[in-house]
């Protein structure tokens, strides 16, 4: 039997609903229908009172969940697509993100964000949102790259007393399989060495971890050993693990699938140079998606985001410095 990334997300929600009475789910079509991606399939049947279909009202969905969260519940809100959280943006950053600082009362809210591109999804069903929410104070931003993290980080997210933006990658939903969910390993806030190496470090997260590993594999035939660091959460950002890796390799490529201006890769590079400048043997580089909306046609899409080929190219630039 094998478990997919989306299975893990569903299982985490099921286990949370079973283990805790304060957890509930809210989102469009998540009830009997089981959600656009089936992340909540069958859950309403078992918990009719705690799995609720919402109207098409992202602002109110999040506002409602905030109200519930400060009243002793631990809501999980499913955005049908992360892109639609733009409508909930105000409630997320200004209501949830500021609440603890302002009032001293934390908001144990989790917003599940189906992120990232798949071929043919186009500009409004493909966006990454970690740069958006990472910028604002008061939010924890998670982006699991594998099945085990999808499960364990979601459980940690929901048990955390603070608001969490949980960035799931749609491309991984069914494509990524594992034999089992496995035991919890690292905890929230710790990055993971996804692939050890010694000539250069790629720091990335979410689906790009797999593309980076592919790129690393293909360079391995030439004798290059590339280390891949999976951030797991982009806020907090585990700089220690990143710096330790850069200390080993002397070279850094920050890789992400988001738009290229600002965001995770800029934050990683800036922190590394501020604290580990002397460790660097070459200019730290970045590779992101292109600076346009995400194109709908699969051929354009594949060129818009980083690919193993474009990662290899960037890595060569880095290694040849």
């Amino acid at each position, binding site marked *: 039997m094998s478990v997919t990334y989306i299975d893990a997300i569903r299982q985490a929600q099921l286990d949370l609903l079973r283990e805790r009475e304060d957890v509930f789910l809210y989102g469009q079509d998540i009830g009997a229908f089981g959600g656009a991606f089936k992340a909540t399939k069958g859950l309403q049947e078992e918990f009719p009172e705690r799995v609720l279909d919402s109207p098409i009202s992202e602002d109110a969905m999040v506002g409602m969940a905030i109200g519930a969260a400060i009243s002793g519940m631990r809501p999980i809100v499913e955005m049908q697509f992360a892109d639609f959280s733009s409508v909930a943006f105000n409630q997320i950053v200004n209501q949830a993100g500021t609440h603890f600082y302002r009032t001293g009362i934390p908001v144990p809210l989790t917003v599940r964000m189906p992120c990232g591109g798949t071929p043919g999804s186009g*500009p409004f069903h493909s966006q990454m949102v970690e740069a958006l929410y990472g910028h604002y104070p008061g939010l924890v931003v998670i982006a699991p790259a594998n099945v085990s993290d999808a499960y364990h980080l979601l459980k940690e997210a929901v048990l955390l007393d603070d608001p969490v933006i949980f960035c799931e990658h749609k491309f991984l939903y069914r494509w990524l399989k594992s034999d089992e969910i496995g035991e919890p390993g690292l905890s929230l806030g710790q990055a993971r060495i996804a692939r050890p190496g010694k000539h250069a470090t790629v720091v990335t997260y979410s689906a790009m971890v797999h593309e980076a590993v592919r790129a690393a594999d293909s360079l391995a035939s030439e004798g290059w050993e590339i280390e891949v660091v999976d951030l797991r959460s982009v806020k907090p950002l585990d700089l220690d693990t990143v710096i330790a890796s850069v200390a080993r390799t002397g070279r850094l490529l920050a890789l992400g699938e988001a738009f290229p201006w600002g965001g995770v890769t800029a934050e990683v590079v800036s922190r590394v140079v501020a604290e580990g400048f002397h460790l660097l043997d070459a200019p730290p580089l970045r590779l992101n998606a292109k600076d346009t909306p995400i194109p709908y046609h699969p051929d354009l899409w594949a060129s818009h985001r980083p690919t193993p080929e474009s990662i290899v190219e960037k890595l060569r630039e880095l290694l040849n410095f």
Partner: protein
Amino acid sequence: MSAPQIPVILSSSPSSAATIGRDLMRRTLRMMILSRTLESKLASLYKAGKIVGGVYLGTGQEAFSGSLGCLLDQDRDIFAPLIRDQAGRTAFGEELIDATRTHLGSAQGPMRGRDGNIHRGRPSERRPAMISHLGSAVSVVAGMLIARRMQGSLTGVVGATCVGDGATSTGAFHEGLNLAAVEKLPLVILVADNQFAYSTPRERQFACNSLLDRAAGYGVGGIEIDATSLVSCLTGIQTAVNAARSGNGPQMVVGRLLRLCGHGEHDDGSYVAPELKNSLLGRDCVENGKVELIELGYATAAEIESWQEEASEQVQEAVAIAQKENGPDPYCEDWRAVSTPGMQ
């Protein structure tokens, strides 16, 4: 200001058919048939794995959408369609090839592979290209009308857009319609109350009896119609379009019907209860429209049959052309998101 009057037309009569006229009815039915034919073809291409992206159909909503398209003036009105408006698009003058090209991934489509399918549009021909976020076209159409008012070219112009029952729950819908009402713009908004938003039934979406109950709260005119009947659609929408055109401010038309397909072609819609399908709401407006025309003596079965054949040929041709065309070449993309050089 006195509250706008809210008539409700839930059934139609031959007398209302008379005010519409034979030509309009014939043209609308032809557009409905063309749209249905195109969409059936897209559905089979989807099943065959030939489509790029998703397929969202307007099956069952052709009378509602197509009537609007036929009642608008292609030379000056504005039409901002949503996901179930193939019939309205076609009736408002969109060529079939625009639809087949986007769905089949041709670089020659109006969006050049950058955006797809139902998002296509030609803003310079007064057909905005929708973004996915529901409700957000309402204010855009309002702005297109305000521009014309400032430019002195608003007289006689109507801007129309469509939403579903679910989209009425968005803040964007509310803000947009309210703004249009404050500016007393000639906006016609069709609300296709097709009983579901994706899988979500009406009672999980709103608590009023009829979405028409919302019109008064915006201070706009409104009408509710049986959108499975072509006569009722043309009559009701004509009333609204005329009211808007003659300066009475925004008009809301709530059409009661049932989505006769899945939310998208990936969805079998199994959550729709058989009783609903078998109810009056589940009546197929295309089949019913044929009966309506025949009963009124506006068309013969043979004529309709010939329209059907013509439609099939047109669709075949549009598919064939698009299928031969290449997709966009990523190496020729300039990856520019702003028009001014140096501004990125």
